[in-house]
């Protein structure tokens, strides 16, 4: 792999890791808010 390949892997890997974590938090938030709205009905 060329040096640019390692650079791309580092940047894409970081985006996937941090983006994946943020997406999982947003999914949990949505699920919990839906449950909360459901229980208040």
């Amino acid at each position, binding site marked *: 792999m060329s040096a640019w390949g390692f*650079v791309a892997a580092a940047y894409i890997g970081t985006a996937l*890791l941090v983006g994946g974590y943020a997406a999982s938090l947003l999914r*949990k938030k949505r699920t*919990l*808010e839906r449950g*909360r709205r459901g229980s208040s009905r």
Partner: protein
Amino acid sequence: MTQQRVAAPPESPAAKRIPLWKILALPTVALMGVLVYAALALAPEDADQGPAQRIFYIHVPSAWIAFLAFAVVFVASVALLATGKRKWDDRAVASAEVGVVFTTVVMLTGPLWARPVWGVYWEWDPKLTAVFILWLIYMSYLALRSYVPDPSRRARFSAVLGIAGFLDVPIVYLAVRWWRGLHPEAVVLGKGGPQLPASMLQILLFGVFTFTLLYLVLFTLRLHVGRLRSAQEEVQA
């Protein structure tokens, strides 16, 4: 059989305010785009390391965020033990989780930078070993929480680990000075001030600023999710 539902607690005025993560999310994503462009297209190429050195602009800010996150865990853990208030435990666990994510980024980007420069992905060098131990400590911190069902005992046990675990942060930082290894010394806060050209330093500092915003977004979002979960547990109890 009739289904019974318990009314959710009314929202406090604070809950109606626009949360910080919502305010900062879009500007942070935009700034991250600018950072990637600056790091990959604007930054000068390093004469010795070539393109691989561009990993520096995400590796160093990630390490800074991991240190910041674990410092917040330390402060919140001390506050928890001093006051016993649950809000400090919520803050500590939110910061620990974000810290683990960024330590994982450090451990991903480090080997990808090391391979083209050192010829190996990993070496049991003192600094790398100390970072690996740091990652294990805070993974254990998060795992511990799922083994202690009582919230107040869980908070106290976690706080003790959050305080003890922070001792590894200065070891990670000073490992290069204390023991010689492959990892280079700090180039910004090292002895004799910044050791890199102004054009590289500016992009690095911009990266540190942008990653700090990213930490604030993820920390406050995780805090919000934690509060929603606690409210749900209270309703179900």
